[in-house]
């Protein structure tokens, strides 16, 4: 049956299982929008194309399905770049569809023409320019397959206006992907398994470093079984949080720059690192020269290009984490490693006395208290917390105890401010039954707060907790530590966030004292629609501990003990 490119586009999306697409129309994508009315796909109109990509990303991370974002050519397409790079660095499967000027005027600097496949080449897993309707169906099938297989990532499909308008015979079955060079399904050699098992057998002080790959692979129960059977403690990356329940006795918590002291000390003291679906990012290793120098290293990773990139490893097992662990588990011996875990518990005790939770209520509001109270109120439920980037993000990672995978959505690799609100919209669309909370700084919120309109228009119940300290807090913290408190361009003049919420018809609550936190959270949860909570917290609070960039992982700046008030209160 003959169909136009525009019709083929929507039909292919439907056949790929897409139910929602996040987009913004414009000239070069208009033929596609014209055909939208015959599609079952629900289109979410965003307020900025960056928002569309973050929504697709949040949708993918919350639900595990490919997210779809749509934009027009030129500025529509370039506005997507930040969201695409965000998805790339965090291995999130999204497909971005962009309109392109007519194939006959490509290269002529036509109105709203940009070379978006050229621009996005380094930040996509793969991308396509479709100039002829005949190529469209196969290209879309390939795009979804590439996005979701192997190490997931963003794929962009740029479709010229004439390819959308012209027609061809549409045959889904015949349009099978043709990817002779693409091999996402690698598996280790038997010898590599033997070497890994031998290292685990011999180790007295092993630690598992658990990353995002565990969630992408769906290897949660296999990881848990490995840790329990062999008595191996588990440290998590930021994006790994939730892959093992925070309450699990072997869960140490987050490692790295703002990881708890005992976690980083454990890594430095270990004789074996078992890295599972993580990539030794500089935020988790600190100075590579001094990183876990006494430890052998096993790296289980789906992307062969990550092996020996940052940290040289002794054994690499390349392939799907879940499949690899399933081969290994029957050969994992139960070994008593209580001496090692007791040693770690001792480290833990030292840190507990410095916990800000032990600070008596002096009438001041600390972000850590807000997040800890939010966790206490919402624990046990099907909750997704979506954070932005900065101090609040690290406090969330430290004080919100994630028990389940896909319950924390955050921009890790790229560190994209403005991510939280749109990503939360995507998460809520993917999992409407879940309770979704945005935890966002006053800086990042202002980058994409235009999407409040999208939230209201889609009638989504998402609560927004602004951790409002009147500063670009993390940058201020770096200025405090490394630039002699020279607070250039970090104090923020903020609008009245309550009034902004009012303008969108969003209920809002301002909180200035610790005792008001719980009632405010309860009230927000009970309300039918979205609620914006403006938490006015201590302005110059600091995320501790901190491994300064370039320092060894065990050289941390610690919260002073006994705990003192921040500078402003002295």
């Amino acid at each position, binding site marked *: 049956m003959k169909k136009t490119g525009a019709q083929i586009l929507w039909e292919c999306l439907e056949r790929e299982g897409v139910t929602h697409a996040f987009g913004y129309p414009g000239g070069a994508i208009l033929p596609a929008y014209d055909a939208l009315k015959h599609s079952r796909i629900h289109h979410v109109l965003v307020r900025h194309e960056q928002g569309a990509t973050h929504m697709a990303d949040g949708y993918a991370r919350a639900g595990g399905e490919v997210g779809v974002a749509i934009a027009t050519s030129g500025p529509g397409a370039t506005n997507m770049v930040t969201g695409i790079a965000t998805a790339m660095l965090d291995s999130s499967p999204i497909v971005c569809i962009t309109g392109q000027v007519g194939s006959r005027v490509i290269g002529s600097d036509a109105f709203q023409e940009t070379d978006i496949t050229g621009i996005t080449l380094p930040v996509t897993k793969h991308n396509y*320019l479709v100039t002829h309707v005949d190529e469209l169906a196969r290209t879309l099938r390939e795009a979804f397959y590439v996005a979701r297989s192997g190490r997931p990532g963003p794929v962009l499909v740029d479709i010229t206006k004439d390819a959308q308008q012209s027609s061809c015979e549409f045959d889904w079955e015949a349009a*099978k992907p*043709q990817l*002779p*060079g*693409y*091999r996402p399904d690698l598996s280790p050699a038997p010898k590599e398994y033997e070497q890994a098992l031998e290292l685990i057998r011999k180790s007295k002080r092993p630690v598992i470093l658990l990353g995002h790959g565990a969630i992408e692979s769906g290897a949660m129960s296999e990881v848990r079984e490995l840790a329990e059977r062999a008595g191996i403690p588990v440290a998590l990356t930021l994006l790994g949080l939730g892959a093992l329940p925070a309450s699990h006795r072997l869960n140490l918590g987050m490692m790295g720059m703002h990881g708890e002291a005992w976690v980083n000390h454990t890594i430095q003291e270990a004789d074996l690192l078992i890295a599972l679906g993580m990539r030794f990012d500089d935020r988790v290793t600190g100075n590579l020269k001094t990183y876990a120098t006494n430890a052998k290293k096993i790296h289980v990773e789906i*992307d062969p*290009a990550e092996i020996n990139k940052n940290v040289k490893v002794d054994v690499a097992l390349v392939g799907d984490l879940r499949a690899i662990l399933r081969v290994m588990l029957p050969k994992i011996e139960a070994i008593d490693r209580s001496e090692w875990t007791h040693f770690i518990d001792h480290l833990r005790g030292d840190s507990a006395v410095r916990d800000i939770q032990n600070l008596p209520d002096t009438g001041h509001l600390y972000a850590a208290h807000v997040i800890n109270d939010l966790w206490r109120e919402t624990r046990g439920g099907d909750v997704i917390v979506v954070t932005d980037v900065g101090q609040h993000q690290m406090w969330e990672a430290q004080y919100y105890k994630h028990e389940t995978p896909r319950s924390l959505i955050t921009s890790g690799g790229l560190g994209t401010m403005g991510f939280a609100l749109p990503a939360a919209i995507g998460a809520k669309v993917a999992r409407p039954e879940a309770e979704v909370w945005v935890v966002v700084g006053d800086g990042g919120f202002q980058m994409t707060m235009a999407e409040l309109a999208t939230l209201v228009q889609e009638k989504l119940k998402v609560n927004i907790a602004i951790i409002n300290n009147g500063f670009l807090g993390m940058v201020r913290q770096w200025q405090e530590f490394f630039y002699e408190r020279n607070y250039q361009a970090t104090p923020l003049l903020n609008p009245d966030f309550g009034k902004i919420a009012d303008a969108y018809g969003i209920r809002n609550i301002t909180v200035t004292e610790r005792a008001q936190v719980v009632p405010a959270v309860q009230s927000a949860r009970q309300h039918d629609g979205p609620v914006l909570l403006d938490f006015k917290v201590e302005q110059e609070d600091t995320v501790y501990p901190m491994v300064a960039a370039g320092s060894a992982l065990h050289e941390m700046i610690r919260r002073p003990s006994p705990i003192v008030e921040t500078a402003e209160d002295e």
Partner: protein
Amino acid sequence: MLNTFVVYVENKPGVLTRVASLFRRRAFNIDSLTVGRTEKPEVSRMTITVDADHDQARRIEANLYKLVNVLLVENITTEPAIVRDLAMIKVAATHGGRSHVLELASVFRARVVDVAPESLIMEITGDEDKIDGLLEVLRPYGILEMVRTGIVAMRRGSKPSSFARAANSTSQAVGGDDVQQSV
């Protein structure tokens, strides 16, 4: 050390850009890159030489494989192979020096492909050292212009490249519902 990669890629628009962009953004320094057709119209073949240590070379290979259009990568640095570069050299040849220049061309088995009153063009094929050697001895006469193709390489012996073997044993359609392992 200089590593030589033979890279088979799908013959599609933009593939050269993808490969070049990869080397740029991963900060690998290309010494030479050539690309051309192969015995199969749908496949192009690149020869890339890069200055890299052992670990870097492995990562280059792994990163090349991450490009969806890359079919096969062979690092033939340590394998017996024929490696050739082609140069055309326009050298000043006035009647005083002409016979010396022609003698040198003959010693290096370069072919004279153009003769003009004040100059001549010679064509030479060989490994890079041989061409460098000819350039060295021609320099005193005055090199007016020079162009080199960059190297192409092929493994010695009757064994076909592993690409040819892989292509014969693999279905072309990979992906979707009928995913197959391709190598």
